[in-house]
């Protein structure tokens, strides 16, 4: 299968090893990964901040990059950005009165999957250790991000994959379904309320004793990790793609992230 990677702006700029891990997993399964270089961002920050007019060129850019017959499905290591591509792009295009953009956005949305959706629903992966060689001998806890839970209805797809990684210990996170308080520009406009929410999330993570909190959205993990780091907590954060990509031969390296040896692995 030819799979187009939508890295998302935050992974592209801040967490490139998450995108490298995504590439590594898919190539390991024998698929061809392409990276449409025209891509930038889904525009969710603009949309959710009320700047619809400013979002239109961002959406148009995404549609331009991905509305091509040159791949079978697109994947992003983010539930939130995928939800934006699927639901918000057609909505904003319609409000802008651009029916052409709307229908192209819809067709891109239909072909775009969040990583665990792609692995589970399309590629039929049920055992990460057996099928991906995933090995991660660390105790983790898992935060299901809101948009994965409530917009994409991912249910336990990410968690189920994590549980099948060799060597991993997954500790249940108390009040896991509670928002971490990120909410995009909410964390700036209403920084204090956001911090109060984050405080509780960080306490719950610490209470599990896990050394890492994992999840499927880099933005939420940036927020949670920022709070954990400020409070001096021992636990850090890591995207679940990097856990799936980690193997005995090429284990995850906290210093270089995943994929430092990707060329060798290929």
């Amino acid at each position, binding site marked *: 299968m030819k799979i187009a990677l939508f890295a998302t702006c935050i992974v592209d700029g801040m967490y490139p090893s998450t995108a*490298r891990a995504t590439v590594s997993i898919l190539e390991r399964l024998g698929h061809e990964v392409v990276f449409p270089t025209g891509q930038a961002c889904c525009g969710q920050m603009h949309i959710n901040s009320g*700047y619809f007019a400013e979002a239109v060129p961002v959406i148009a850019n995404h549609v331009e990059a991905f509305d091509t017959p040159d791949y079978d499905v697109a994947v992003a290591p983010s539930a939130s950005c995928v939800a934006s591509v699927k639901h918000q792009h057609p909505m904003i295009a319609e409000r802008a009165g651009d029916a052409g953009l709307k229908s192209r956005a819809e067709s891109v949305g239909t072909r775009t999957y969040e990583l665990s959706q792609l692995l589970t629903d399309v590629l039929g992966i049920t055992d990460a250790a057996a099928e991906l060689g995933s090995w991660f001998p660390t105790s983790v806890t898992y935060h299901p991000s809101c948009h994965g839970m409530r917009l994409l209805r991912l249910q336990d797809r990410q968690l189920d994959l994590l549980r099948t990684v060799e060597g991993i210990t997954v500790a249940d996170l108390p009040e896991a379904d509670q928002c971490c308080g990120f909410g995009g520009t909410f964390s700036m406009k*209403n920084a204090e309320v956001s*911090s109060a929410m984050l405080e509780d999330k960080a306490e719950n993570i610490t209470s599990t004793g896990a050394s890492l909190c994992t999840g499927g959205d880099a933005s939420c993990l940036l927020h949670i990790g920022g709070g954990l780091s400020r409070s001096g907590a021992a636990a850090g954060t890591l995207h679940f793609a990097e856990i799936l990509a980690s193997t005995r031969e090429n284990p995850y390296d906290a210093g270089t992230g995943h*994929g430092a040896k990707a*060329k060798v692995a290929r």
Partner: protein
Amino acid sequence: MSAVFVGMPSLPAYGIGNLHATESFPDAAHHELANDQMRTNLRHATHSIRDKRLKVVGELPDWEDLRSAGSATKEAAMADLPALLEQFEANFTARGGIIHWARDAEEANRIVASLVREQDTEEVVKVKSMATEEIGLNDHLAAEGIEAFETDLAELIVQLGHDKPSHILVPAIHKNRSEVREIFLREMPDVDPELTDDPRQLAMAARAHLRRKFLSAKVAISGANFALADTGTLGVVESEGNGRMCLTLPQTLITVMGIEKLLPQADDLEVFMQLLPRSSTGERMNPYTSFWTGVTEDDGPQNVHLVMVDNGRTAALSDRYGRSALHCIRCSACMNVCPVYERTGGHAYGSTYPGPIGAILSPLMTGIKAEENNSLPYASSLCGACFDACPVKINIPEILVHLRGEDVDSRRGKPRMPSEMDLMMKGAQWAFSSGTHLNLLEKALPLGRLAAGRDKKIKRLPGRLAGGWTASRDIPAPPKKSFRDWWASEHDAGDTGTTKDGK
């Protein structure tokens, strides 16, 4: 022929009264977050109602179908509202009721005050009602020399405490029982000085206090949960029986109701009487459900009035993206599951309607430009818990985003300095609307590494917005190179089988 202005009111007519925040949400939240006792009370209360709701909702295998049915019924009713209102008026009037139409809070207050004065009394008893909170009826009556006695236990606590409700169902949710005891000891005449904070004792004290009022009042004022167009019937759903007393004992009953409470027919109650109690108190059924249709000779109130209030509802109805907010049946499930409400409490929202539904309903009814209400749509992380909990499937997160758009658009084209947010969004539009632009920007990543310094953390950023972030969160040092940079220089460079841009 010259055009003559005949004074037709221009639509939409916005709502007035207790629908406005007096300070912006972040400022109000700042004060409320400092109240540790309130946060503890709220956390305890919202979590216990949340758990109860989940349990009773889980008992119904057709819960999702019920939600869809409730949503569809409301949508149809709103689409046909003018006809339903006329049908209701005809049936209500035929059964001896008298209907009054109020364009806004001021008109509604004036009508109620004059109806009370007609009965030659200076006291009224009240059934808990959001509509009368919204129009500020108690204050208006007080100014006219009429004293209104709240008879719902929690409303009584709020009234005696000279406080404001902070929740639409549990208005004293921000108080715990020892605080309630203090209020009773201080404010309730003839209260037993030995009163403890045992809930039963507190309820008995309130009961004794209220009984005298029920038996002496000539006029009762209520809200309504439902109005049935096909029969002209009104209904109130409650837990304590105080409503039943008010609806049956006094000779005059004045109901104040928003025009959106209309349901086409009695059969619709089958759905709503399953949705409402389970969503609000987490009960399979509420203890008291009262319905009345006009006047029944020698039985119950002989003067039955209904004040139908618009107060911005027509304005909300005219917003195609926001109108479904009017489907709200005031169950309060959204505030019980909201992580923002749980931390700030209801007072931070300013309006009678707090929480997620208030954050959309208040600005829809007052217009987004009203005072501080333009800050309300931002009072959400868009986590979506409210949408999942809503028994009539109001897509609150989507309407919040819509109203943010309205707010931003309302400030466009005015001569003013661009805000920090405006500048950030303009910059991001440039960066995010082209892969080439983003690539250029990402070439600056090493600068971020420099700023992070030795411990690889950015701990402080300038500006109100970015500074708000770094007040409680670090930012990790950015990577040496972006993914796209790596892809071009390392992945793609050694791989001929992969096209560069997917085209």
